[in-house]
């Protein structure tokens, strides 16, 4: 069941995981492990982080994505592939920041109405692909998603 959340998450990638993973181990907080839409790099970063001692329960994987209208489909298919994979190093909840990426697009920046619909559409799409956690931006949008998903 997809969760639509508003909270801030710590995000690590291959450039900073060596600092952020030990910090997450200490804090006990969830850590997003982000890689650039590549299934092998996703596995690799997960393995490296687990090797550094990061507890599996703290891991959320983000295979990254473009905004709505800007190559969303690449990230969308990557989520589906990860979900289908069955590989033990990919068996972590998937988090998506499709909303954040979509709100950076030109169309979303110039039109608040477009931005709201686009936020919802992007969230819905990645949830459809199998994202377990979708980070939202607007409280109203987040409530819409929760209401619809329960209806």
């Amino acid at each position, binding site marked *: 069941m997809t969760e639509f959340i508003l909270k801030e998450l710590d995000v690590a990638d291959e450039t900073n995981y060596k600092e952020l993973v030990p910090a997450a181990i200490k804090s006990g907080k969830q850590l997003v492990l982000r890689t650039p839409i590549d299934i092998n790099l996703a596995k690799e970063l997960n393995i490296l982080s687990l090797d550094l001692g990061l507890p599996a329960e703290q891991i959320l994987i983000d295979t990254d994505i*473009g905004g*709505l*209208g*800007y*190559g*969303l*489909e*690449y990230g*969308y*298919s990557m989520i*589906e*592939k990860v979900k*289908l994979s069955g590989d033990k190093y990919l068996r972590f909840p998937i988090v998506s920041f499709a909303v954040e990426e979509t709100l*950076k*697009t*030109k*169309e979303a920046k110039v*039109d608040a*109405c*477009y931005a*709201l*619909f*686009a936020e*919802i*559409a*992007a*969230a*819905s*799409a990645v*949830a*459809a*692909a199998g994202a377990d956690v979708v980070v939202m931006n607007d409280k*109203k*949008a987040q*409530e*819409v*998603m929760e*209401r*619809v*998903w*329960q*209806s």
Partner: protein
Amino acid sequence: MAELTGLQIFQHLKGAGHFNCKECGCATCMAFALKEAKTNIEKCPYAPDELKDIITQNARQPQKTLEIQGVKIGGENVLYRHEKKFNNPTALAVIVKTEQERKRVQEFKVKRVNEELGVDLVLTREEYDALGVNKIVDRSFKQTAAELIRLRKEAIEQRNEADPVCVYLPSAGANESGLPELCAKASYYICKYANMLVFEDFDETLLSVLLTLRQNIFTDPEKPMQVDPGVYEFNDPDENSLVFMTTNFALTYFAVAGELENLPTGSYLIVVPSNGMSVLTAWSAEKFTAQIVAKTLKDFDFANKVKTRKIVIPGLLAQMKEELEQAVSEFEFVVGTNEAYKISELFG
């Protein structure tokens, strides 16, 4: 039902009693089994009925393709776009009651990445009622979603020309969250197996968003999207503004365009025709060469359009700087960033 291999077909033919008779036009049963049997089993007068049944069944499409007022729907045969591709984008239809409504819906058009998009079908209630499709009336999201998934899986398993599936979306009413909720549902249904959506409500911004999503989901994963070559302008550049250059692969263009949008100054982006390939791919396939760049700049008469005499090239093509300067005398080529997202650091 599993696909038969040529070898398996041969095993069936071997026991049919007229081994290598050549009546099918092939020299041997093996040749026929490998080359022709799957599509022309009837050429063999002695093929067992059991074999003919399996082949006929395998030739059936999981889902029918229907044409409604010129719009094709259905014909889908995969669960995931990356398995092959989705064949016919979810048709978006709006039911109208008055001529005024009809006109408003028909006039709505948006242009996105070289395509002009709009509502596919404008229907009267009677025309909708007369459609021969599998209709789901959307009441509960969970139920509609589950039904769409069930029907697509069933169509693929049974390979029995299933009807395309249409979801009817009742009016969202005057409630302020009506259209946002409709957006959430319609977006999901576009991704997950609705061949057609029928709306009672119409909102231009909502439809723009849904058409954009649909365009993304239904692109052929094997054919990367391209943008038109040309000179693109960002933030009102003047004759002294920065000039960037890249390939016409849509993702590359979007990545760079997004950065240039956010620069505090105006700029130009010269998009070079490169078969829709990314920067390194185009370079190694010789679809982005000094000659092609020189020709492109000449075709656009770019040297006469600006006073700027420097063009920023992708950092990944640093090795091309000299040959570019030899091929193009009017400009100096500056090596830019390797990644688009670093553009604002360097130039912002």
